[in-house]
């Protein structure tokens, strides 16, 4: 099927997965509210499962997208396999977040249907973010995602940490939205359009326009904020720390994936013509992010917060892939994003499994003996941590290898070396958790701890762990798909990383 966007109805098809998920989110909201009205009580389990079903249906619609193509690439939304790939990652992230929140919400006494509905709305925002080919749609998608997340972060109103995290996330998030919006205004003023396909041909003439460059710079800042690149990461540890852990998992995975996809679409595809202008500063930000985040992560006593910094560090690694400026870089980026989503969501899932009751404290000492108390989850957690560190036998190793290779290919030797050094630093804090988990006996009072991750969550963790391992042994086909997905980006006129249309 071919879409030409001349008729508005074609947009309904192009946006089918997003529409399906939006309607489904409303359905979830209605089911919940009709079932219990305004009574304050836990929602039925059916709400969570319904939400999961919605994700599955959306995934099907998303797969269907592969069968249609665009007549011209002028639409506000892209219909290409890059978007489909990113959508799948986002959907996986959302599904993992829902699976680990089952049971967890009850424990914290915040099992409300709105949680799932908001989570789905945020997912819609992420999907749109990966599809946006128009800066205004980008802004709207970003806000749709963010507004839902502001609420989710502060979902546990009775917990001062949750509320505080939400306040900081909200204030700084809308602060950065302001920059993004002003950047869009300046780009709009100088390019006379907000559509990337209209901007790209004008780039040679815009290269000298300070208004455009400042606009592009503000856009960079706005997106860098969402992917948590240093020094725009300041909100991240606090928001991640304060948020209910499933939300943290979603923010660390889905949000990052979607925002990075937008990053690629806007900068790598759209603004490829001014690569020289933005690449230098971005390289420095990548360096700062990799080293800064890893160093700070070393000093963290809380595992949850350590993982927050770890996710910042990974934004740095992903930036190296973006900056590699070649086909392998983009494919490596998608591959790493997938591994990263699985291992990060998994790690946060274990944080849930080990947290005490409603208390979210997750000190390193709380993991003493965890590996023996919970053999399965301990092994799974070790896999995730080793993968995050880039240990061989895990997908994280292959992912880093790909990024390194693409970076070397591009001649970014300093970035490649820094990535290796930075991940060496990261070994210390990841392994520390493994060591504590297996080598330090649990205090006696730990004996009566119960498993705090329900069956579905455990299953999700195990599947993710197996996937992380599988991505080491058979990474070939995923990489193949990633490479083909990247190729679809070239339908936009303009050069992509020197590959050309």
């Amino acid at each position, binding site marked *: 099927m071919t879409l030409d966007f001349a008729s508005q109805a074609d947009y309904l098809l192009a946006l089918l997965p997003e529409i399906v998920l939006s309607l489904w989110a409303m359905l979830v909201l209605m089911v919940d509210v009709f079932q219990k009205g305004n009574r304050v009580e836990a929602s039925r389990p059916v709400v969570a499962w319904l939400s999961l079903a919605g994700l599955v249906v959306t995934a099907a619609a998303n797969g269907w997208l592969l069968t249609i193509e665009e007549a011209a690439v002028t639409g506000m939304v892209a219909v290409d396999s890059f978007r489909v790939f990113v959508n799948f990652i986002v959907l996986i992230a959302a599904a993992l977040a829902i699976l680990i929140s089952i049971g967890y919400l009850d424990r914290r006494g915040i099992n409300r249907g709105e949680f799932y509905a908001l989570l789905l709305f945020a997912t819609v925002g992420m999907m749109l973010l990966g599809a946006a080919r128009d800066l*205004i749609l980008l*802004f*709207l998608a970003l*806000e749709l995602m963010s*507004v839902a997340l*502001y*609420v989710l972060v*502060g979902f546990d*109103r009775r917990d*001062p*940490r949750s*509320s*505080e*995290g*939400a*306040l*900081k996330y*909200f*204030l700084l998030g*809308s*602060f950065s*939205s*302001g*920059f993004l*919006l*002003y950047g*869009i*205004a*300046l780009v*709009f*003023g100088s*390019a*006379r*359009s*907000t559509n990337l396909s209209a901007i790209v041909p004008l780039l040679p003439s815009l290269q000298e326009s300070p208004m455009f460059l400042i606009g592009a710079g503000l856009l960079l800042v706005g997106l860098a904020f969402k992917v948590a690149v240093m020094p725009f990461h300041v909100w991240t*540890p*606090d928001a991640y*720390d*304060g948020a209910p852990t499933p939300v943290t998992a979603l923010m660390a995975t889905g949000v990052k994936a979607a925002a990075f996809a937008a990053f690629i679409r806007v900068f790598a595809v759209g603004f490829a013509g001014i690569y020289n202008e933005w690449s230098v500063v971005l390289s420095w930000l990548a360096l700062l992010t990799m080293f800064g985040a890893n160093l700070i992560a070393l*000093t963290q006593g809380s595992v949850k917060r350590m993982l927050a910094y770890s996710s910042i560090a990974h934004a740095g690694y992903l930036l190296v892939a973006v900056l590699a400026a070649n086909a392998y870089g983009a494919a490596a980026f998608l591959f790493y994003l997938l591994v990263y989503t699985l291992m990060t969501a998994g790690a946060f899932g274990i944080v849930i499994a080990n947290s005490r009751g409603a208390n979210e404290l997750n000190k390193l000492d709380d993991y003493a003996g965890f590996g023996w108390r919970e053999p399965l989850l301990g092994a799974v957690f070790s896999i995730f941590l080793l993968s995050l560190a880039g240990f061989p036998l895990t997908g994280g190793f292959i992912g880093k290898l790909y990024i390194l290779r693409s970076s070397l290919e591009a001649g970014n030797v300093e970035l490649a070396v820094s990535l290796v050094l930075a991940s060496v630093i990261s070994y210390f804090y990841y392994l520390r958790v493994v060591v504590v988990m297996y080598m330090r006996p649990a205090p006696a009072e730990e004996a009566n701890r119960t498993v705090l991750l329900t069956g579905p969550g455990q299953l999700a963790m195990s599947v993710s762990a197996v996937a992380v391992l599988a991505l080491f042994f058979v990474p070939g086909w995923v990489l193949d798909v990633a490479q083909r997905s990247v190729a679809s980006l070239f339908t936009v006129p303009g050069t992509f990383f020197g590959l050309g249309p």
Partner: protein
Amino acid sequence: MLPLNAALFLSAILFAIGTAGVVVRRNAIILFMCIELMLNAANLAFVALSPYAGIDGQVIVFFVIAVAAAEAAVGLAIIIAVFRHAESVDIRNFSLLRW
């Protein structure tokens, strides 16, 4: 007709005031108002640019207004939630999460 530069200049000044406000003010509500000021500065830029760059600019403003309203609703709710814990909206009181 107003010169374009003047309108843009005004919008830039408003944006700068909003930005500075976020850095120096302590009251969460005022902070939020400063952020709204930034968004509206961008709106002003869009409107000022629209005769020159296309009618889209004015359409965008509608979207931004709607988004700002949604943000306001959520933001005020969050501030209320925080106020219930701290009995204050002074952001200096909120540093449970740090380091």
